[in-house]
């Protein structure tokens, strides 16, 4: 199997990438502003929802239950969707999903498609696969369009272009749309997008979307959005193709009453987002006459197999954990090297890879717990992070890495008092070339990994034990 998560397998470590991005003041200002606005709106609408904790409990319980019976619900969804005139396809990994989708489009003779925002398509690298086959995807979500026209990468799950400000967006639009004049008010920019895309919506015959929820009971699909571009793509084309991770299935129509309360309040701080579309297979009077849904594994069932972290699959992609995370708020999304950024990205990306790539991500956190507190489906992200750090360490120990040898040596030193105190004496002598104005800023060799992201206090001239011994002899110096 070849698991792909965007370009994450080739990305530099979080620590390395973050170092560069921390110097980008514009990016940091934009990220801070956007996350502040959403966080504030979210806390307002969550505070007024008196049964919020009960909704979280139910959301978490429904997701945990669904995962326990995932084969049952996928089977049920497939049968119901097929009975309603839809076609269900299965993809074990990203390449297979891309092959299926390209094949479906080519069978229609399609040269272009209109796309609703879908993280899953970014995960499998769909746009690149389409372009390699001469098919042009038009991103229609305003932020995704900014990213696509600006040849950029998304930096947030819900508002992917939050790192761009109005002047930057204006530049991108003028160039890509060939406009001579364009204002830089958000109204002007939105209006330009409306005019540019309306023509595409009416012309392009194949629509493509992700899914927020698949309903096993009915075979239906639910997509939530704000702009109306989603509704355009879901209803105007002749053919609709939807991609969804296998974990997106929920048991019943009624279960939406929980998730449609949790998701909008958590994602955008709204009581309800402007549009939710629900459809089941093909509807005779209106909408696409052909509907395909591609169900994607791409590492999800491997996450399911780890019982200590399978709750990662509860995620409904609201982005609340990004907005509240003190690390994300400093670095923005690009440092994570994955289309899934922030705390959820830090646990999701490496697990999709079965910990073979992105091993630095479980360390991209201070474990403060803010993400767990805001998570609408109660994913205990700090606990999963610690679990994954354990997996990274165990994997590294199995090899003869320098760090593993160092750790074994350390264990021997810590085993007896004599060796420990000798090491302390040695350390006090060895450290003095590195001390400057009472701090250690840089350590040599492997120890430098520690000081790369923080300064150290030097070891004190006297240990507690020394002081205690001196005190017994009556010559305490305090």
């Amino acid at each position, binding site marked *: 199997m070849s698991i792909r998560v965007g370009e994450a397998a080739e990305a530099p470590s979080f620590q390395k990438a973050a170092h560069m991005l921390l110097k980008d003041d514009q990016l940091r200002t*934009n990220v801070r502003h956007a996350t502040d*606005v959403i966080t504030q709106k979210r806390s307002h609408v969550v505070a007024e929802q008196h*049964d919020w904790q*009960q909704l979280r*409990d*139910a959301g978490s*319980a429904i997701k945990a*239950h669904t995962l*326990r*019976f*995932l*084969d049952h619900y*996928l089977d049920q969804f497939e049968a119901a969707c097929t009975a309603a005139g839809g076609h*269900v*396809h*299965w993809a*074990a990994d990203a390449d297979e999903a891309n*092959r299926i989708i390209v094949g479906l489009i080519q069978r229609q003779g399609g040269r272009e498609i209109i796309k609703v925002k879908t993280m899953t398509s970014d995960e499998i690298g769909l746009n690149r696969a389409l372009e390699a086959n001469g098919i042009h995807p038009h991103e229609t979500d*305003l*932020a995704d369009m900014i990213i696509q026209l600006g040849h950029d990468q998304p930096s947030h799950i819900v*508002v992917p272009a*939050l790192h761009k400000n*109005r002047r930057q*967006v204006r530049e991108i639009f003028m160039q890509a749309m060939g406009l001579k004049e364009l204002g830089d008010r*958000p*109204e002007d920019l*939105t209006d330009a997008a*409306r005019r540019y895309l309306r023509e595409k*919506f*009416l012309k392009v015959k194949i629509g493509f979307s992700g899914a927020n929820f698949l309903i096993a*009971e009915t075979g239906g699909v639910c997509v939530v959005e*704000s*702009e*109306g*571009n989603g*509704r355009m793509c879901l*209803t*105007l084309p002749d053919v609709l193709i939807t991609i969804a991770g296998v974990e997106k299935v929920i048991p019943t*129509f*009624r279960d939406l*009453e*929980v998730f*449609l*309360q949790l998701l909008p309040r958590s994602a955008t701080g*709204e*009581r*309800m*987002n*402007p549009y*939710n*579309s*629900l459809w*089941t297979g093909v*509807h005779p009077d*209106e909408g696409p006459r052909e509907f395909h849904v591609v169900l994607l*594994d791409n590492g999800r*069932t*491997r996450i*399911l197999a780890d*019982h200590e972290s399978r709750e990662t699959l509860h995620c409904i992609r609201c982005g609340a954990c990004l907005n509240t995370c003190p690390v994300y708020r400093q670095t923005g999304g690009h440092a994570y090297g994955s289309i899934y950024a922030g705390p959820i990205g830090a646990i999701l990306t490496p697990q999709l890879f079965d910990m073979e790539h992105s091993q630095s991500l479980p360390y991209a956190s201070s474990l403060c717990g803010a993400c767990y507190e805001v998570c609408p489906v109660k994913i205990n992200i700090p606990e999963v992070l610690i679990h994954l750090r354990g997996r990274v360490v165990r994997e590294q120990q199995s090899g003869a890495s320098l760090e593993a040898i160092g750790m074994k040596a350390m264990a021997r030193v810590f085993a007896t008092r004599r060796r420990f105190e000798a090491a302390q004496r040695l350390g006090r002598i060895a450290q003095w070339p590195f001390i400057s104005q009472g701090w250690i800023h840089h350590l040599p060799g492997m120890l430098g990994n520690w000081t790369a992201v923080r300064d150290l206090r030097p070891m004190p001239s006297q240990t507690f034990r020394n002081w205690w011994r001196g005190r017994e002899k009556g010559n305490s110096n305090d």
Partner: protein
Amino acid sequence: MTETTSAARSAIFDRIQKANSSVQARSQVADYAAISREYQQSASKHRAAILETFAERLREYDARVHQASSMTVAEAIRIALAEHGQHSALVANAFPKEWLPDGLSWRAEADAEVDAMDKAEGAIVTCKVAIAHTGTIVLKDARKLTLLPDRLLCVVREDQVVETVPEAFARLQSLATDALTFVSGPSATADIEMTRIRGVHGPRFLDVVLV
């Protein structure tokens, strides 16, 4: 279904079953029934307060709310359209025609192609359920009609308004396999500097006549 996708299907199901081999303590039905649903599922307010909340939420979304009795719906629609200077409309197939004001130039949804919808001044529809708590109207079918024209007018009967989202889902259960659209205010975006802009691709104006 192609051969490779069915191979993928059985591989995925195998992995799921292996991953779950030790966790299915009870049956799926019993396990689902055991999910705790302590959240609010029924109304807690008086009818008048529920209707007031509904109107207030709509206004917060920049929608206009017009009150009418069953006798004055046509008049309320006439006034609402006049405020926009609107003289014509496309009307949903299921809309009661006696509610249309005299003098309005209208065509039925069934007679309009996509191009006509794109150029139409506005659409007039009814809803299936409305949710006060979130200011939402739930529409069945008429998906293009309620999307392409720049103005949307929806007639909501008072008895269609429920307080909470779970009450709405209870009422919608019989329509669970229909094409449903939940509309909460006009189309909007906050993608540029988190500034909320009304009307991206959907209708920029929403009028609700509350009967």
